[in-house]
């Protein structure tokens, strides 16, 4: 299958809005995880998150539209605009029937839904905003982005827990490789810092309860790991064929060259212990990318900071890469801003693309003493390293495995 060019990046995250701000914070290893201030979270077992406080500052969305949409759609609209600007694309000059949107989301828009449900129980039927129906569901951002830009091509929202956005990017590439569309806005968005969503994340049982040390709480692959920390945001990229990108003299930031997905099928929440299906997903992605194990120079870890997930990730990597795994730098930059659930894979890919551009492996916070031996973990200091091809791993509840290969872009691609 053809490689597909990434020509624009839009990102809204706790570590920054826009790719430059994000990268500046990532490379310096700053943590943006703190106590939740949006609502009173004091009774929750886990009450820390990567929160975005100044969304309006970066937004040109009218108040008239804002009152109809949830924060996750707002984030997707800002990220889409940033991606299009970065790609130098004015959507008015595109054939709308040949532009698509492929986004991933895990939980929907609860900030909006919770308020309306509360009103329903207090005021009755008429207390509920008529926009509720179109604001909360996982595909709402896809709808809002399509309306905002008049996009009319084949589009899809993928709901696959934390693997949602990486899966959306994988499918977007497939659709573009079949020449079905001219370009796609691909990625994901998530806004879980709300009372009900936080409650559900808490009952899942995998969140860190180290509330008194927010910046040290999320410890992927560390011996003292005690669960992950949620974050909110959106990562969206412009994807198009290499041919089209070259024709319009676009800056080719990266190439998406391989994708693989499998299911563990053993437990409704946990992954399988052996990592065999994750290994198979990685192998499918490598074969798809026509990349051998010696060509991968960086691996972005899923890094849930839960024993069974991290251990099975290590087993899968050892199975696929053998002794070569000792040489490949691996890291988990989401330790700095939280796990964006359905948007996490898109953020990981965006960070990997920046890492390739700057020849710098992004840090992992709080990886003081690795729980497993044999991996070349990059800790709190970013490390200079040429990256030509990177592997991104993203996994979801119940054992959804997805892996994506991304390559350094250049206009000679």
């Amino acid at each position, binding site marked *: 299958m053809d490689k597909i060019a990434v020509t624009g990046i839009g990102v809204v995250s706790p570590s920054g809005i826009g790719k430059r701000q994000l990268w500046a914070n990532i490379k310096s290893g700053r943590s943006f995880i703190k106590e939740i201030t949006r609502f009173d979270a004091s009774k929750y077992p886990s009450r820390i998150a990567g929160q975005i406080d100044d969304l309006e500052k970066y937004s040109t969305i*009218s108040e*008239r539209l*804002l009152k*109809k949409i949830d924060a996750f759609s707002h984030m997707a609209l800002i990220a889409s605009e940033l991606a299009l600007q970065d790609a130098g694309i004015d959507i008015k000059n595109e054939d709308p029937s040949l532009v698509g949107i492929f986004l991933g989301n895990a939980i929907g828009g609860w900030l909006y839904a919770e308020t309306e449900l509360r009103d329903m129980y207090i005021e009755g039927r*008429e207390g509920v*905003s*008529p*926009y509720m129906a179109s604001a909360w569901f996982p595909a709402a951002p896809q709808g809002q982005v399509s309306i905002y830009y008049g996009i009319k091509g084949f589009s899809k929202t993928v709901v696959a827990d934390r693997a949602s956005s990486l899966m959306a990017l994988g499918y977007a590439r497939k659709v573009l490789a079949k020449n079905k569309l001219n370009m796609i806005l691909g990625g994901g968005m998530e806004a879980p810092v709300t009372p009900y969503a936080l409650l559900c994340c808490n009952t899942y049982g995998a969140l860190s309860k180290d509330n008194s040390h927010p910046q040290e709480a999320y410890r992927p692959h560390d011996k003292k790991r005690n669960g992950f920390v949620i974050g909110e945001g959106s990562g969206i990229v412009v994807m198009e064929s290499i041919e089209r990108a070259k024709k319009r003299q676009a800056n080719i930031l990266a190439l998406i060259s391989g994708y693989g997905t499998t299911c563990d099928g053993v437990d409704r929440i946990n992954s399988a212990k052996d990592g065999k299906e994750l290994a198979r997903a990685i192998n499918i992605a490598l074969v798809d990318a026509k990349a051998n194990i010696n060509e991968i120079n960086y691996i972005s870890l899923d890094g849930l900071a839960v024993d069974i997930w991290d251990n099975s990730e290590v087993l899968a990597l050892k199975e696929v890469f053998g002794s070569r795994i000792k040489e490949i730098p691996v890291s988990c930059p989401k330790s700095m801003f939280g796990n964006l659930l359905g948007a996490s894979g898109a953020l990981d890919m965006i960070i990997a693309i920046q890492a390739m551009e700057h020849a710098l492996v992004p840090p992992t916070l709080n990886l003081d003493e690795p729980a497993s031996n044999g991996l070349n973990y990059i800790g709190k200091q970013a490390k200079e390293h040429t990256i030509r091809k990177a592997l991104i791993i993203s996994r979801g509840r119940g054992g959804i495995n997805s892996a994506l290969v991304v390559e350094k872009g250049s206009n000679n691609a």
Partner: protein
Amino acid sequence: MDTKSKVRDVLVNLLKVKPDELKDDLTLQESIGVDSTEMVESVIALEKSFGVKLSPKEITKNSTVNDIANNIQSKLAK
């Protein structure tokens, strides 16, 4: 406040449009491009605000602010 000013206030605050966009003698469709969900919301807000019963058939995208004010005025007078 007269009925028309109050209707304008309700619609401007509810729909978050600029007061000068909303023209008294143009239909809601023509002046602010109102959509069907906004109409549902508007009818409920006007009912609450004036304490009258309004049907979505009486107040539509094709009503002007003047039409709406007259309709409400006549109900209030009964």
